[in-house]
């Protein structure tokens, strides 16, 4: 029976501290469990509450075991919701805690847990990827490959890419896992990888799997220029790899041998108290197992290769740094260590506030200097718009209007002949001149030409249907011709348009002649109050009433 791992920890305080951490976060889980008991709802599923009476570490281990046994995407497993509350906060736990916990776990659980932690946070990614590499050594390679298939390829490459440069058994294992997952590496990294690879057919084949077919030629070229064949063993290695690269490949990568006894030994070496932890080992051998996230010594080609394989290669000093994120993000990350969102927000505010202030301030428009007005305009307009009637005024219209006004002068002086000729001149210049058309009718009416006057008035009404007095003249012409129906109709139209009292009185007179006293009385009675009190109206009304009585049967 394997002794409880906590019992072999160095010092009781470490165990106590670890338990405190788990208890603190277990409180969160307990509250969540209570909520689940009440609502019986978790993330879309119903789960039984966590059993009580276990220590925090046992809770964690139990959850890990449950989680590891469930199928599917690790993030979508039912236990993940509870596990993440316990596991993720522990990512910053002391190294000793993980050095103690991980060896006590089943390797598959440890591998899953470390990969999940590496996935959760970029800051601790390197450490937990390294732990994942260590955990993968403790299980058959095929099993590790199956487990690692659940994770994104870039994450696996970030962990197992640098491991290609490790000595066996990690190097070949990494090659197998990457090949099995179909992950390729950059051709430029291959010389560094090959330099530390031992010549074994399976390993070379796995390395060949890591090269995309279209990059074979560039790999061969790189090997010829950057691979030092002068070192003992390198020439043979080079030729063997080229042969493997050029030959047909096996469909499946070859699984490296795995010895359980060796794995157990490695496991016991990983336990604290026996040997230094992988981190300590890493610190003791800085030139081979430096964390890729550590500051890279510019002179260490191996460290550079590790960084390239992990995707964290920092360009040498002197070259422009092209970061993928925003400039504020870069500044924040490298200088201020402030959260990216806050920096972007401050940047956005810094841009928007001055813009708002600028647009909110009213700036008077610059007025151009006005020069003296020229005596004649540069371009004489062809027409104007009448500001009152909105009619287009041309020179022709003005000439017509001028003739009309002249005709008005003669008309007022009762010189109808001259007036008529002027009105006709105006009409010839502007056939739509309503005033001229009307005045032609007036001149003809006065001169006795009823037919001509009628035509003129009707034309003027066609031009303007509500022309004042046109209907009145037509009524007079009709009355003179004894066409009373027409006359009354025209009187009514004119009265409807103007409501003029003089028109009303003339209309009433016509009705009186026809003996239609009731209509006449009704018309006068219906006048507006401002007219109905006038003396003429009152007298006429009285006369009409008397005549109506006389004519009444």
């Amino acid at each position, binding site marked *: 029976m394997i002794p409880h791992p906590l019992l072999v920890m160095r010092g009781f305080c470490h165990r106590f501290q670890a338990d405190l951490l788990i208890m603190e976060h277990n409180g969160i889980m307990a509250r969540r469990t209570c909520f689940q008991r009440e609502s019986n709802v978790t993330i879309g599923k119903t789960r039984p509450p966590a059993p009580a009476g276990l220590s925090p570490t046992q809770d964690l281990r139990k959850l890990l075991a449950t989680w590891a046994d469930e199928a599917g995407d690790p993030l979508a497993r039912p236990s993940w919701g509870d596990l993440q509350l316990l596991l993720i906060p522990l990512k910053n736990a002391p190294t000793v805690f993980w050095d103690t916990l991980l060896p006590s776990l089943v390797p598959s659980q440890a591998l899953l847990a470390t990969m999940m932690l590496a996935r959760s946070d970029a800051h601790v990614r390197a450490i937990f990827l390294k732990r994942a590499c260590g955990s993968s050594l403790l299980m058959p390679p095929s099993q590790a490959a199956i487990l690692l298939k659940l994770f994104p390829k870039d994450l696996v490459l970030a962990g197992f890419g640098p491991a290609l440069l490790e000595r066996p058994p990690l190097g070949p294992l990494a090659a197998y896992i990457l090949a099995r997952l179909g992950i390729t590496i950059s051709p430029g990294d291959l010389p560094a990888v090959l330099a530390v690879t031992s010549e074994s057919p399976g390993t070379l084949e796995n390395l060949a799997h890591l090269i995309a077919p279209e990059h074979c030629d560039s790999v061969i070229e790189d090997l010829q220029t950057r691979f030092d064949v002068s070192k003992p063993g390198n020439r043979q290695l080079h030729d063997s790899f080229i042969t493997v690269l050029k030959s047909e490949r096996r469909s499946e990568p070859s699984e490296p041998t795995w010895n359980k006894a060796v794995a157990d030994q490695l496991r016991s070496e990983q336990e604290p108290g026996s040997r230094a932890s992988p981190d300590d080992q890493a610190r003791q051998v800085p030139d081979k197992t430096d964390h890729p996230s550590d500051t890279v010594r510019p002179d260490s080609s191996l460290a550079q290769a590790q960084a390239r394989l992990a995707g964290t290669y920092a360009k040498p000093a002197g070259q422009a740094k092209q970061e993928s994120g925003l400039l504020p993000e870069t500044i924040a990350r490298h200088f201020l260590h402030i959260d990216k969102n806050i920096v972007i927000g401050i940047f956005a505010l810094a841009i928007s506030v001055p813009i708002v202030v600028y647009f909110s301030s009213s700036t008077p428009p610059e007025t151009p200097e*006005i020069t*003296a*007005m*020229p*005596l*004649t*305009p540069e371009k*004489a*307009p062809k*027409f*104007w*718009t*009448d*500001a*009152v009637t909105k009619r287009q*005024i041309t*020179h022709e219209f*003005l000439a017509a*209007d*001028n003739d009309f*006004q*002249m005709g*008005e*002068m*003669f008309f007022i*002086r009762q*010189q109808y002949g001259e007036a008529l000729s002027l009105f006709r001149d105006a009409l010839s210049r502007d056939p739509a001149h309503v005033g001229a058309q009307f005045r032609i009718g007036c001149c003809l009416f006065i001169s006795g030409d009823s037919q001509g006057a009628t035509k003129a008035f009707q034309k003027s009404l066609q031009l303007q249907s509500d022309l004042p007095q046109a209907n009145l003249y037509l009524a007079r012409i009709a009355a003179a011709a004894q066409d009373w129906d027409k006359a009354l109709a025209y009187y009514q139209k004119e009265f409807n348009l103007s409501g003029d009292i003089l028109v009303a009185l003339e209309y009433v007179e016509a009705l009186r002649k026809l003996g239609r006293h009731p209509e006449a009385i009704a018309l006068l009675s219906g006048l507006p109050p401002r007219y109905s009190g006038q003396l003429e109206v009152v007298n006429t009304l009285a006369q009409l009433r008397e005549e109506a009585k006389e004519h009444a049967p």
Partner: protein
Amino acid sequence: MNRRAVSFVEIIIALGILIVCMIPVLTMFGTSGRAVLKSQNLGFSIGLAHRVSQHLLVMPFDAITEVPLPGSPIADGPDDGYFNPVANHGTQISGALRITKAQTPDLWSFLRKYEYRYSLIVNSVNFAAGDRMKCVGIIITWKEGGKDLLYKLYTYVPDI
């Protein structure tokens, strides 16, 4: 999955709808503004035409001559008895003020801005010996909103 928050796209779409709905309201401001401006210019033009018509009544009959279109400018115009000189607060002719940028800048700038001009269409009629009358068409023109506008007033000036 219940969404209770407002997404970014929804905010932008709502803003766009708001701006579109505000456009008719905004055009209303411009329309009412143009109405007031037109009223100001028409009222001023009527006053100018009336001023000319009154000056015609005191002017010697034979001095009423035609001013053909496109018309004579009122600002920076010649001494015509209608508009220039416009005022004189002194006791001598040297104190007479004309509508120029130097002497009456405020009035000048207003008249210059709209390019006010006036023209007279004069027709003389002899009814009988000693009975003459002139039919004068007073035309005030100005520019507004890129248009050439016009106001005309006809008056009859007897020779008495």
